[in-house]
Structure formats: C-alpha cells, structure tokens
C-alpha cells in the first residue's frame, strides 16, 4: 500500500468512532452486569414453578412464562402462514400494478406504526367488536398484526434472492405454476424466511405495551388452559414488578429479565447462525 506519514488530523475520526462503539457496548455490558448482580440470586427452580405472589420470597413466573409460551405459539400459528403467503402473492403472483404497489408501500408504513397503536386496534377490534375479551387469542392476534409487516418484508427479501433462472428452468421442464411456486421457489427461500420469522417472534416475546392495552392481567395465579382464557406474560410481569417501589420486587424483576433476555438472545443467536450459514453457502455456490 501507499505508506503515508500519519497526519494528526487523521486520528480524531477513527478514534471517536471506536469510542462511540465502546460506549454502546459498555452500556450493554453494564446492563448485563447490573441485571445479573441484582437478579442472579433469585434464580432457582421454585422461581419457575411458583405463581406470582404478594410475598416476594414466594413469587415466581410460572403463569407468566406459560402465558408467554402460549402467546408465542399462537402468534407463530397465525403470523407465519399469513406472512409467508402474503409475500408469495406480492412477489411471485401479483402483477406489478398500482394496487399491489399500494399494498407494498402500505406494509412499509405499517412497520413504522408504534406497537401501542396496534394495541388500541386490538382493544377495539378483537377485545370489543369481535368479542374475544381480554383473552390469549386477542393478545396473539394483536401481536400477529404487529409482526406481520416484518415477516412479510423478510420473506419478500428471501424470495427475491432466489435466482430467476431456477424458476425459468422449472417452467422450462413443464412444471405448473403451483409446482414452481411451492416446490422450487418457496423451498429455496424458506431458510431465509425462517431467520426473519425467528427475529420477528423474538420481538413479539418482548412486547409489553400492546398486551397491556388488550388487557393482559397484571396478576395471575393460574395457568391459561385454552385460547379464550385470560393471561399474563413475562414482559407484563417484569413491568409489574419493576413499577413497584420495594427492593425485593425490583430484584424479582431482574431475575425475570434474565429469563426473558436468555430466550431473546437465544432466538437472535439462532437467527444469526442461520444467516451466516446462508451467506457462506451463497458465497461458495
């Protein structure tokens, strides 16, 4: 390379950049240290199998964890098929006309709508008009609407990455449009879609505001048994504990945060691994 004498003016920019990066990661580190020092003491088996309680020593996250898992499963059941099918329609079937362009622009704008506005929609539509009440299914429908734009856009991206040649070749050997769509295009795009779906679901796990609006319980000492039952979730439980002034409840909140963060980080990690694997596969082929 052209070795140049280092000029003093060359230094501030990279140094400031590195410093900014370090500030951001220091915050992340402080966050984790603080939460572990507060909450790690509370991690025990009984914390997982006890219901919420007025007494901090007896309190656990059983109903909250189960509520979150229910929500996650229901949200996945609703949002994954609708999201992937929408993407298939928009990217593979729809003619590129003004109306489908409008749908695409609309999806882009929906992704920027604050989650609490979805909560208001869920409250008015699912809880009141459709009469679901403050039930798991109302919460799951609301969360599904919230993450649908993310899933659709991720799926469109991965459909776009499927080479056009593949479709042409399939048509060339006489495959029907449905065969091309499901057996060639979709099967190639699915790994990329999974990454998007996992990230979207991990986002839905941490969502709190729309669930409060829909009317999730702040205190539940029972397990939800069906979709129409009332519920609470990990995020709601954390909010509830964190907003109490007593030190003991703050520590419980930290312990619950350790649980929720380990789940979200795990989901993020899996999604990242998938993405790395995908990009390395693309590089070699």
């Amino acid at each position, binding site marked *: 390379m052209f070795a140049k004498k280092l000029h003093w003016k*060359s230094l501030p*920019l990279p140094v400031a950049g590195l410093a*900014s990066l370090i500030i951001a990661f220091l915050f992340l580190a402080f966050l984790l240290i603080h939460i572990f020092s507060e909450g790690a003491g509370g991690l025990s088996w009984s914390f997982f199998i006890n219901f919420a309680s007025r007494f901090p020593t007896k309190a656990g996250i059983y109903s909250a964890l189960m509520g979150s898992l229910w929500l996650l499963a229901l949200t996945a059941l609703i949002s994954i*098929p609708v999201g992937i099918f929408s993407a298939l329609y928009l990217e593979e079937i729809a003619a590129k006309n003004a109306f489908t362009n409008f749908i695409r622009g609309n999806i882009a704008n929906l992704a920027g709508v604050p989650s609490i506005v979805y909560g208001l929609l869920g409250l008015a539509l699912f809880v009141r008009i459709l009469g679901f009440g403050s039930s798991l299914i109302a919460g799951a429908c609301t969360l599904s609407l919230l993450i649908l734009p993310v899933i659709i856009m*991720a799926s469109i991206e991965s459909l776009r990455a499927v080479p056009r040649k593949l479709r042409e070749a399939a048509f060339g050997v006489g495959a029907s449009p449905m065969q091309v769509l499901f057996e060639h295009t979709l099967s190639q795009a699915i790994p990329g879609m999974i990454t998007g779906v996992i990230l979207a679901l991990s986002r839905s796990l941490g969502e709190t505001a729309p669930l409060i609006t829909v009317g999730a319980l702040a205190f539940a000492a029972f397990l939800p048994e069906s979709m129409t039952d009332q519920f609470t979730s990990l995020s709601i439980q954390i909010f509830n504990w964190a907003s109490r002034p007593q030190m003991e409840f703050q520590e419980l909140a930290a312990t619950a945060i350790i649980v929720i963060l380990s789940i979200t980080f795990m989901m993020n990690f899996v999604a990242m691994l998938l993405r790395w694997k995908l990009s390395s596969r693309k590089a070699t082929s």
Partner: protein
Amino acid sequence: MGLTKLNLKAASAEGSSIGDPSLTSVDSHGVAAVHAYPQVSLARSWNSPSGNFVEQSLQYFLFACALSSVLTTFGIVFILLKEMSGFFSVVSVWEFFTGTQWFPLLSPARFGVLPLVSGTLMIALGSCLIAVPIGLLIAIFLSEYCPRGFRVILKSALELLAGIPTVVYGYLALTFVTPQLAKIFPQIEVFNALSACIVVGIMIIPTIASVTEDAIHSVPGYLRDAGYGLGMRRYQIVSSIVFPAAISGFVASIILGLSRAIGETMAVTLAAGASPKLTFNFFESIQTMTAFIVQVSQGDTPAGTIEYQSIFVVGFCLFIMTLGTNLIAQFVVRRIHHRI
C-alpha cells in the same frame, strides 16, 4: 432486526439498467429503500387459461392473505376515527389542541394535549441528541475504518441492543441510570425525563447506525477513488466526499430514530413517570402520549367513557406523527436513489 438489509448498491445497479425503480420497502428498522423489477414478470403464467381450479383458488387465497395488511391499516384508521368522533362531540377541538392542562381522570377533566405532546417531543429530541452523534460515528467507523471480519460481528452485536425488550430498558433506567444521575444531579426526581432520554437514545443507536451505514455503503467506489487520486487523506475523503454523498441516508436515519422514539412506550412509562406537565426541565417527571395510553389501559376503563375515547384520540395523534415522520424518511431515501 435488520435482516432484510436492503442493498442500495445492488438496487441502484439493477435500477440503472432498467430505469424503473417501482417499489419502496422498509425493513424492520423502518429503513426505506428502492427496488427494481425485471421487466417481464413470470407472474403472467398464472393467468394463463390452463390454470386449473385448485391453482385459481390458491391464487385468491394468497391474495386474501396479502390483503390483510391493507385491512389492518383501514382497521387502525377506522377505529381511531370512530372513537375520536365520540370524543370530539364532548371536548372541543380547540381546547384539545391548545389546552395546556391534561387531567382526564380528575373532575372537572381537562383535555389539553400539549403537555403530552411536549413530553413526547422532549424524549424524542433528547434521545436523538444522544443517539445521532454516536450512531453516525459508529456508522463511519464500521464502514470506513473497521476490518472486514470484525464488521459483521460488531454489526450483529449492535443488533442485540435493538433486540432487547423495551421494558428491560425501562427497568434499567429506573434502577441503574437514575441512581447514577442522582449522584451528579442531586435535584433529580425519581421519575425523570433525562434517564428516559438516555435509554431511548441507546435503544435507537442501532437504527441510526445501520441506516447511515447502508447509505455510506452505497456511495460509489469511484468517488472515493477520485479523492485518492487527488491525494486526499482518508479523513478528508470521509468528511468531504463520503459523508456529503450519504447525507440523505443520514437525515433519513435521524427521522426514523425520531419516529421510533416518539412511539417508544415501556421505557418512558417506567422511567419518565406519569405527570403530564408543560415543562422543558429534564430533571422532572413528565408524561408522554404513549405513557398516558398505558396508564389508562392499566385500569379497567369501560368502553364509551370519555377516558376510553381519550386514549384513542391520543393514539391517533401518535399515529399521525409517526406516519408523517416515516413518510418523510422514505421520501428522503428515495431522493438519494435518484441522485446516485
């Protein structure tokens, strides 16, 4: 987060040969970018007469799925407008938009939205003041100075910051940031706007960094080469070529960050408190529009009451503010595309 990384460079290369960038889309950060389409669509084959009944009905089924997003938008607008009409039949529009007192739960109730709007703007502007310089410097560092191998790892790690649930940030503001701030500023209240600004700022750093980085990435290499040809140093190239070329992406990232901060709910609810007042003192407790909706939703407010309607009216203001900022950001990004 950020997995639908939209490669402006690829899109612009494709777009230049076809010249028909016909779609703008936004990734999970709300990042807008323009895509180009091939001129001939394979979709045609679906409409051929040979399509059998199953394929036809499948097509309608998929269309119905795609329609769900449009229905969502209409649902949001319809429901917000419906509750709003009920609200404004009781409260005058003039009082709502110019009143400086917000006491919806007291009697006599006061519905002046300005304190909530000022609270929201305080958080949005304060957090951007923190996040914009840090985000910009991170973007420059990652794209210009960072070794390639580290870049991917650092970007993934930054995405972790974006993946943390917002209620966790709220907890952190309350139990970690505020006690630290109290050591420096003893007059600070337990609930204060400053701690909320700090955590929301940290939260939107990844958005600002990744959108700006994409814009910097899309600056054509020949511009840089031209700078080197003139004997410029790297910092000169960054500050006088790359940054000016990527400025629209940077502006868009600020607007998107603002929009996220406006819509941010749990962190500000926990950290900034619930006292709506028209102030610009960052050490005091305030209330944002989102925090008000949470406060009312926590109680069991029956439908049809004025409190119930008031959260929809505030929600409508929020919806308009974020939609407006997002549309501006998309417009700005589309301009970069036309310029390059």
